[in-house]
């Protein structure tokens, strides 16, 4: 179980992590600024295993991999949205942050609700209901299962 | 007994003869306020209980340290300044025209014999046209804005005579660095410098500006050059008998007199991290560098850029070395565009940034990291001035800087 942090539609990469922090030497130095313009307290309130839930087009904008990386570094278990922008989606999978497409969840959960995600079954449990979510394509599931693209690179070598 | 130049300028201002050590109250002819200090000045001005600026025409506001803005809060300084200018009806505001000290002389705000204060230590620059000018803090500036006056202690003077013929590869930057090396960083504290001799007579106002600018690095309160034809032309004034009189009497009394032979000067560098750690460039030659900066109120004028272009023409900046050129003012940039200097510098590989304090004040424009070395034409090589405390800054002339950029190591132009 993890807590829901609910955001709207078109949450762009600049809101996830603003440009002025991207050249900081490490992700750990950036992560306190996650969602700074939308929810200043996010980084201090989020706990290991929590979820980010959003509407359409989550992660649109730049290719900055810092965006999924800071979410992962803060312990976010998965991002569940109605749809994702493609570079964010790809980046998230590559670093091992699950990104789940689910049309229904956004409209029935509130900020702070507890939910549980079963990726193998493609199912989210909330408020006593089970909601189906899209399973990842096998290629991406394979990368995730390996622990991200770097892990697969090390294995191939 | 005769008077030194500073004694004459102060006497002229206060209407009575003064001598070193006197504490007198001067009437201020101009003040320069820069963007980085403005919010503090305005706060103090109000806190002191003032409502109106004593004479709006005598106030010049210049945005230069924070242009362009690099941090979100920088723009607050513009707005506080704009609001104050509107409220007080200040007619002279420069929002992106260049570095304050360049503009004060170039735009005609300072004339020979004037008494001028600014909230920046390099306000000493205006001595190049025979004005008494010096840097003060923002609290005193707030006081001047309210009263038009400031107390000063009349300084003793160190006289420096430079006669003879300079080697062709020596610039006025080499001269002032050499002087600072001799006097040490506090050798002229509380005192005025006064320069004279053939070499000074032959110098452009721009070259004198470089010397006056850096006089604060040996602690000087000001550094004066007697007004001559060049000064008059530069300032757009007539060289009246009254201005001719603003030179030291032959029987003036000095704290010290230095006689320097022009032929003895060589290109020099100030080594990290003291402005007075000066040695011949030849002794530092071969030191690998990462960056070169040509600009600032010390050496960002047309003659400096042209000198750099002369060195760089048809050559390229060394691989992995960055050359950053920042003209001192919009006027300098325009003139350098028109006469092809910018073209030469850009083709050699220079990054040319908009006129501002930029890298010299360490807020932007080429900040460096641990272990990196820079050769710079500006005025300070203090620890941490351009990045971390592990950055090494060498100060040099535009010619030395340009040659070093090409070589990728400290190098100087042969005579």
């Amino acid at each position, binding site marked *: 179980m993890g807590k829901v942090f609910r955001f709207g539609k078109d949450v762009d990469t600049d809101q996830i992590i603003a440009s002025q922090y991207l*050249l900081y030497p490490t*992700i750990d130095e950036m992560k306190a600024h996650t969602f700074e313009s939308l929810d200043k307290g996010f980084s201090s309130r989020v706990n290991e295993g929590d979820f980010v839930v959003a509407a359409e087009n989550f992660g649109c904008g730049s290719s900055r991999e810092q965006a999924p990386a800071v979410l992962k570094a803060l312990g976010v278990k998965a991002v569940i949205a109605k749809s994702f922008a493609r570079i964010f989606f790809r980046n998230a999978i590559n670093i091992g942050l699950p990104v789940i497409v689910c049309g229904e969840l956004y409209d029935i959960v509130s900020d702070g609700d507890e939910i549980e995600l079963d990726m193998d079954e493609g199912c989210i449990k909330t408020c006593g209901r089970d909601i189906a979510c899209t399973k990842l394509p096998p290629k991406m599931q394979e990368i995730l299962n390996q622990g991200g693209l770097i892990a697969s690179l090390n294995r191939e070598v | 007994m005769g008077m030194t130049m500073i004694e004459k300028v102060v006497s002229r201002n206060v209407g009575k003869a003064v001598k070193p050590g006197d504490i007198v109250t001067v009437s201020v002819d101009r003040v320069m306020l820069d963007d980085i200090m403005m919010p503090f000045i305005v706060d103090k001005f109000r806190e002191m209980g003032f409502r109106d600026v004593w004479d709006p025409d005598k106030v010049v506001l210049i945005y230069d340290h924070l242009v*362009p803005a690099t941090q979100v809060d920088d*723009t607050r300084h513009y707005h506080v300044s704009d609001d104050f200018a509107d409220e007080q009806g200040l007619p002279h505001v420069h929002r992106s025209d260049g570095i304050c000290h360049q503009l004060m002389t170039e735009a005609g705000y300072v004339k020979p014999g004037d008494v001028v204060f600014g909230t920046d230590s390099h306000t000493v620059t205006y001595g190049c046209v025979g004005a008494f000018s010096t840097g003060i803090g923002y609290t005193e500036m707030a006081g001047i804005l309210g009263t038009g006056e400031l107390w000063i202690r009349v300084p003793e003077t160190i006289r420096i005579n430079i006669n003879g013929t300079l080697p062709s590869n020596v610039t006025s930057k080499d001269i002032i660095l050499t002087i600072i090396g001799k006097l040490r960083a506090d050798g002229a504290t509380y005192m005025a410098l006064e320069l004279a001799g053939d070499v000074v007579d032959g110098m452009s106002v721009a070259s004198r500006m470089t010397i006056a600018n850096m006089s604060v690095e040996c602690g000087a309160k000001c550094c004066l050059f007697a007004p001559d034809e060049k000064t008059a032309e530069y300032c757009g004034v007539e060289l009246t008998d009254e201005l001719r009189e603003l030179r030291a009497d032959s029987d003036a009394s000095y704290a010290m007199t230095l006689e320097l032979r022009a032929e003895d000067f060589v290109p020099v560098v100030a080594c990290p991290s003291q402005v007075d750690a000066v040695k011949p460039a030849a002794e530092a030659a071969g030191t690998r560098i990462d960056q070169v900066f040509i600009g600032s109120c010390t050496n960002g004028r047309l003659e400096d850029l042209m000198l750099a272009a002369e060195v760089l023409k048809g050559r390229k900046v060394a691989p992995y070395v960055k050359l950053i050129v920042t003209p001192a003012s*919009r006027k300098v940039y325009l003139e350098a565009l028109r006469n092809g200097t910018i073209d030469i510098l850009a083709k050699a590989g220079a990054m040319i940034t908009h006129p501002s304090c930029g890298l010299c004040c360490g807020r932007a424009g080429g900040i460096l990291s641990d272990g990196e070395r820079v050769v710079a034409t500006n005025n300070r090589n203090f620890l941490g001035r351009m990045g971390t405390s592990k950055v090494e800054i060498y100060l040099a002339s535009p010619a030395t800087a340009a040659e070093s950029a090409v070589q990728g190591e400290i190098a100087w132009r042969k005579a």
Partner: protein
Amino acid sequence: MGMTIAEKIIAAAAGKSCVRAGDIETVTLDYMMSNDGTTHLTIDMYNKLVSPHISDKDKLIWIVDHNVPSDSVKTAASHKKMRDFARENDITLWEGRGVCHQIMMEHYVCPGQLIFGADSHTCAYGALGAFGTGVGCTDYLYAMVTGQSWLLVPPTLRFNLHGQLRDGVCARDLILSIIKMISASGASYKAMEFGGDGLASLSIADRICICNLCVEAGAKTGLMEVDDKALAYLEERGRVPKQVFAPDADASYEQVYEIDLEDIVPVVAKPHFVDNVVPASECRDVKIDEAFLGSCSNGRIEDLRAGAKVIKGRKVAPKVRFLVVPASKEVYIQAAEEGLLEIFMEAGAIVMNPNCSVCWGSCQGVIGAGETLISTGTRNFKGRAGSPDSFVYLASAPTVTASAVMGRIATADQL
């Protein structure tokens, strides 16, 4: 059945005769571009690999353009890491010589290539018929090590352009109008392919601007048919196409749009989203604090000419900051030679060295809380140019320049 341009390029890169939208293919890349926005992280990951190696260093192009010259010690450390790695591994490094995509256009991109860039606007390369797409640093690292990557073949949206743009209407207005039509996610995961009789009237600069902004509709890439104009651009620069792919007549498109260029009017994208597009005439009362002409979208010589034409003989409105930033050193030098920089400087603009500047929002020209910017940059997201409480409008070069003159949003015909 036939293939689209995107399908043909991916098929060639996958070594197959035919691919279809929805297939996942392993492709060999022609170039991998990375800039200072993420390269420091790529290097950290590279150094942690079990067996780090680079598949083909000649395919790597590294460009320092986002925060250049460096604005802080943290930036300087990241730049140093990138520079040192490039030096040790003999990777081509461009530093301070322009925005990455413009450098790629000027020196590398050829029709038929498949290029990864660690920057979302890599989709710009379609202007020359190359499949460019933005990736994160992990994807980049995988490609750097293996020379390959996997790619989902995108479905294609086809845009047939007809006629030509009216006077005063720009490519920027066209692509913003298209983004409004299909929405900010309307091309998510898809390719946008442009052709039709109207293409011939668009300059290479126009085409780059259009393809560049395709990612703002969510597209994986933007692609233009390669015509004589594109081939002439390449020939001028001594490059030859890898292969020119035209779409098959019976290619399968997800949707086909017919666009009459004469219907397009000057528009602006209002805060805080790129598809929040309205006719510029609807925003005439919006007061601005800053205007920005530059970026990989609109920092080319054609854009500077358009801006200079508008501002020549006029002045930037008081208190408005107008930043003009050529997209590359080549553009800068040409603009200097054509007298454009002089025009901007005379008008009171701030001319900066080629870099990402205001578009990137953390290096120069940052805007403060409550301030409004009109920009030719790529994005108007909340906080994109500085404070989260600021406002960014996107528009064409003439509209931005006219707004700088008026101090509020205006089109050039209003002057």
